[in-house]
């Protein structure tokens, strides 16, 4: 059974259809990639699935339940977690606190306990702190945990954001360009991390421009162009699809023609 089911999803901004009639599904342990040229609507699609934008049409089902238009924090409780293309890090907080924020659902409790520093609150916080330490070690940021997040390098911030997303112990993880701006070594690490996560049964939905990475790790690929799904299938099928080739290669020709004219 599918964990995430997207059906006829669409949204318009000021009359422009940013995403139109997109359907696909993701199973537990599966890595599904959404690819397409810049402006194809990939991030908008992510924002609709994670509840940040209210879809204009269509539905999102999570584990069989209709979750269309549900607030992001509710989706987080239902096991959906994500990262952002342009990094949404809590810059003023420490590296450790960033990950602890990811443990919010686990460590939250009565506000009275928090104000009075009751033992219950201290226990919850200590548990979260232990697990946050393990996650930071996993993304090799354990030495930086006391630093202000804003001081980290770009690649480190990318890993921090993944650690924060994993803190939720998600059933499905949406990764928006996790390897963007990373060097070859870092990309390889992320590649390995994603594969590990999928192997542990987490469903992965990925937006990524690094085609080598996408082709290597995806079970299934969905291709968007101008907000519409133009193809889907396994890596081999998609890479041979004439429409996909046209969307990626043809664009340059038409752009060149436009420039000439």
């Amino acid at each position, binding site marked *: 059974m599918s964990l995430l089911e997207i059906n006829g999803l669409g949204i318009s*901004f000021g009359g422009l259809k940013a995403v139109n009639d997109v359907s696909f599904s993701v199973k537990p342990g599966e890595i599904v990639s959404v690819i397409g040229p810049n402006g194809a609507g990939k*991030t908008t699609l992510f*924002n609709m699935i994670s509840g*940040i934008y209210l879809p204009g049409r269509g539905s999102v089902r999570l584990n069989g339940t209709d979750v269309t238009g549900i607030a992001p924090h509710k989706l987080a409780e239902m096991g959906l977690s994500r990262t*952002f293309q*342009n990094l*949404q890090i809590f810059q003023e907080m420490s590296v450790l606190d960033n990950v602890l924020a990811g443990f919010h659902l686990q460590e939250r409790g009565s506000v009275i306990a928090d104000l009075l520093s009751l033992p219950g609150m201290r226990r919850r916080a200590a548990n979260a702190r232990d697990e946050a330490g393990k996650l930071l070690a996993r993304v090799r940021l354990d030495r930086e945990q006391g630093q202000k997040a804003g001081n980290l390098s770009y690649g480190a911030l990318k890993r921090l954001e993944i650690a924060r997303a994993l803190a939720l112990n998600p059933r499905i993880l949406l990764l928006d360009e996790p390897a963007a701006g990373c060097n070859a070594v870092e990309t390889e690490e992320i590649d390995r991390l994603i594969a590990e996560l999928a192997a542990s049964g987490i469903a992965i939905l990925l937006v990524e421009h690094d085609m080598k990475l996408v082709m290597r790790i995806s079970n299934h690929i969905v291709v968007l162009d101008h907000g519409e799904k133009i193809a889907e299938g396994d890596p081999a099928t998609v890479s041979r699809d004439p429409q996909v080739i046209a969307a990626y290669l043809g664009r340059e020709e038409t752009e060149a023609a436009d420039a000439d004219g």
Partner: protein
Amino acid sequence: MDALLQFIFSGMTVGAVYALVALGFTIIYNASDVVNFAQGEFVMLGGMITVFAHQAGMPLPLAAAMAVVAAAGGGVALNRLAIEPARSAPVVSLIIITIGASILIRGAARLIFDKQLHRLPSFSGDTPIRIMGATILPQSLWVMGGAVAVFIGLWLFFSRTLTGKAVLATANNRIAAQLVGINTRWIMTLSFGLSAAIGALAGVLVTPITLVSYDVGVALALKGFAAAMLGGMGNPRGALLGGILLGLLESMTAGYLSSQYKDAVAFIVILAVLFVMPQGIFGKKPVERV
């Protein structure tokens, strides 16, 4: 019926003043994204300077002109000395800076002038004009006429002059405006001067009716802001309409409900507008990008 008309007249008069204050807010907000809580102090300065210059023997029109110019200078100084150095500060800081400026101007006015209430002679006498059983003071016509004249003047400025269009461009997108060679620093100076001058003009026009003292600015600023927000922040048409509407609501409340709570109307309106339609009547809904 006569009473209703009477309330409408008085509401339109106060409303015109609120509209002028709201226009001042709008101009600065558009140019700089700053809400200038000291806007009411310019109205006070307009009234006070005119009163004292007139008492010193200056003819009224000259005294009024001097007050408007002096207030404009104050607006420019406010921008240069307090707003510009804190351009990139967070909203809380900017709020405190402009409120600090308002307290400072008020304190200075108390020192330079005095703590008394002052009045100015009406421009065209005090004989009420009778219209359909209600009466209106000639000075009220001056106030309303002033608001309309300023509004038309601003509209011509923004739609017909290159400088006006540069202001609009800056309001729309500061960085893009800079890229096409608009001196946005000069635009901000201009906006603060213009907005202070408009406030001072409102003060000159309304002082014969409502009198003036060093501390009238706070209430006017808050109500002008309520008006601007009611019409939709940053929209001159909204400022005019919001001002008149607020004035009418106040005079109706005073007339039919409770004169004690007339001043509460502005804040009930603010809260209602913000809860129901945070964009105001003419405002646009912002789209959040992630």
